């Protein structure tokens, strides 16, 4: 369960390494190169006026990092946070630059090689919100893994918070 697996640099080889994790009954995967570290659950500090799936902030070796509950983001049933609840710290690229954040998941499974040719596009799932953060589906050891584009999934949330509030702050300053 280490994040220190060297990333697959051969983009041309059409294969890349993906960290998979479990949320309820489902398995998801993210690009391993985006993963900064994996740590256990600890209590967060709530932040006011945040969207409900942003639980709060944590101290990650001196920098303040927001924590997102993926279950809530995906509108899954909420789970209790226990000693074995895991936070994956990742970095996203937003219009405002690189940002770090943590996601709360039920557990981390494995690091797997995914061949681009095996990735199937995600089916249209009707009108239940935008699903463009789904990169595709891939089958690994009989299980379906949902590959996530975290820039789209989280980055957009974060830049919406930063963008909207910055404008307000400036207007308020001028007043």
């Amino acid at each position, binding site marked *: 369960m280490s994040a220190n697996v060297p990333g697959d640099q051969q983009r041309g080889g059409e294969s890349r390494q993906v960290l998979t994790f479990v949320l309820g009954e489902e398995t998801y995967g993210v690009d391993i190169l985006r993963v900064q570290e994996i740590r256990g659950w600890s*209590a*967060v*500090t*709530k*932040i*006011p*006026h*945040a969207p409900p799936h942003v639980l*709060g*902030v*944590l*101290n990650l*070796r*001196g*920098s*303040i*990092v*927001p924590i997102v509950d993926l279950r809530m983001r995906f509108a899954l049933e909420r789970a209790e946070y226990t000693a074995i609840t895991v936070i994956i710290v990742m970095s996203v690229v937003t*219009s405002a630059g690189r*940002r*770090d*954040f943590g996601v709360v998941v039920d557990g981390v499974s494995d690091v797997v090689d995914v061949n681009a040719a095996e990735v199937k596009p995600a089916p249209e799932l009707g009108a239940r919100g935008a699903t463009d953060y789904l990169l595709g589906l891939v089958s690994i050891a009989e299980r379906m893994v949902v590959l996530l584009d975290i820039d789209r999934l989280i980055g957009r949330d*974060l830049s919406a*918070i*930063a*963008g*909207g*509030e*910055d*404008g*307000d*702050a*400036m*207007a*308020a*300053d*001028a007043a």
Partner: protein
Amino acid sequence: MTVDLTQFHGAFFEESFEALDAMEAALLKLDIGAPDPELINTIFRVAHSIKGGSATFGFSEIASFTHSLETLLDELRSGAMPVSEDVSEVLLKSVDVMRAMLRAVQAKQPIDAQRVSDLQFDLEVIIARKNQAPPTAAVPQPPAASAAPRWQVRFRPYRELLARGNDPLRMLRELSELGETRVQIDAQNLPPLTDIEPQDCHLAWTLELPGEVGEEAIRQVFDWAEGDCDLEVTRLPEGASDLAVEVPPSPSSPAEAPVALEPPPAPLASQEPPSAAPAPEASAAASRPENTVKADPSMSAHADSGSIRVSVDKIDELMNTVGELVITQAMLSQLGGQFEGPQAEQLRAGLAQLERNMRELQESVMRVRMLPISFVFSRFPRMVRDLAHRLGKQIELKLTGEQTELDKTVLEKIGDPLVHLVRNCIDHGIEPPETRIASGKPPAGTVHLDAAHRGGNIAVEVSDDGGGLDKARILSKARARGLVGANDTLSDAEIYELIFLPGFSTAEKTTDVSGRGVGMDVVRRNVKSLGGAIEVSSESGRGSRFTITLPLTLAIVDGQSVAVGTETYIVPLISIVESMQLKNGSVSRLSGQGEVFSFRGDYLPVIRLHQVFGVEPRTRALHEGLVVVAEGDGRRVGLFVDDLLGQQQVVIKSLETNYGHIEGISGATILGDGSVALILDVPGLIRVASMRRAA
């Protein structure tokens, strides 16, 4: 194998810019007619070392120019030629030219050869005992960058822009920090070289910035130039762009040069405390008072003070690591208190020692970021001299407390407001010599800049002995604008407060120095953004005094921890008036206005923090918790909390690095147990609360 000299370029530029600052300061102190030989030596040394350095590195244009300069200085040094007003003028221009050349070479841009050779010609002419002619000059080339364009900014400075202390270079650089900027320069108004006045700005720029940059942010960059330029900010439709030229990105900007502790492009950053150089317009020899001394010993001391250059990034990293250590140490101390047994006592003694050392370490690291305010003050002697010259006034500039240290970030941002205040003093405050003599004052007015520590703050004062603020005129102007009712009577303080309103100016005619009604509101906004305050006092006929109070550093705040439910918040001590417990029944309800309580004869609104922040409190009954009376933006409120926890200095961490701005919160900090606590922004909180009430 040859040595790669380019690795030394950074240091050469840094040293040369500093040396030029020293040279400029020395020139301004130079007495016409009876020059101090030590000053001439200093000037000579600067020219000599720049000549040597640039020859070594193969910057032949600089070497050639400094050679001519050196020849002239040699004449002065040997006394073969007197120091005249003309000579001093040409030497000052040489400083500007050398600075421009160095900057061009540093940015790997072509040197403005015409400007250099013209001035060089002047030097030769003077050496040949002829007369001087004004050199021609062009404005420094702006940095440029490329990007996908969305905002179009047309920036057409008026000719006087530079003379008024604005630096288009700095503005363009600030813009390029907002996002990738594409720049096109419009040089068509550039007159023939023979007609150019070096002080005038003839260039205009068209810039394009990415669409996600806020319009407000773009306009703020030009705050200081408002009234000195035509500015158009328009949104371009997708894909449209007038600018076809792709220019290489910013390394051309001098600020991005490898060494980070760079001297800002404005003429400052001299280690040497610049003593005041009065800038009388005609009687130079007559009025060089005592304040022109002092600096010289430190000038030579500075040469071998054993300092090294370190990039700010490294210092910030160091600060972060120390911050972490402090937290770990606090954790260990807490843990150590729970141990029992024979060795526990030893452990606790060791931990106490560790705590003391940590505190010292933290203070030392903080001090590394502090710089003397002389870095900012040093730009004034030249500015005051030029301004006084143009306005036909006699001004003595007095600088005191230049060694007062404050944080580099604060230092960088206080320059523009101070320039504005000093400009105002000279233009509006100090009367023309005839008026002064008529009212029994010495013909030369005094502008005094002072800096001093006051408690945990630093106070910077700009005062003059001019006419003072004209209360009657301010008031009548405010009435004419409908800002004050016709029958309202205002106290003096309230009247002075009016000048900080946007668009307020009482100058009878708009001079080319000030009076367009820009400024005091911008000054106040800038000071406030640093967490400071500005106050004004004035006495008719005796002068006025502006006092800016600033925090020593932006990195640390003295805070009171308060508990609300399970959460801990930090209230900055500076905004706390008092903490108190309300008696049952002492709170009244105003219909639609929420709860109020009586405090020293006023009724203050209660802000329930648990409501604003949406947390579950321990108690909702006001008399069971505590009320922290806090002040922000001149308004007082009572913050309702569960309990007070303790006072401590906290290191401010940005929430915006990874998250975003939260209204009512100025940042976060890490507590002794490693958890995060939010720091309240009281003025912001008052705004949030009043919005909620209105909603």
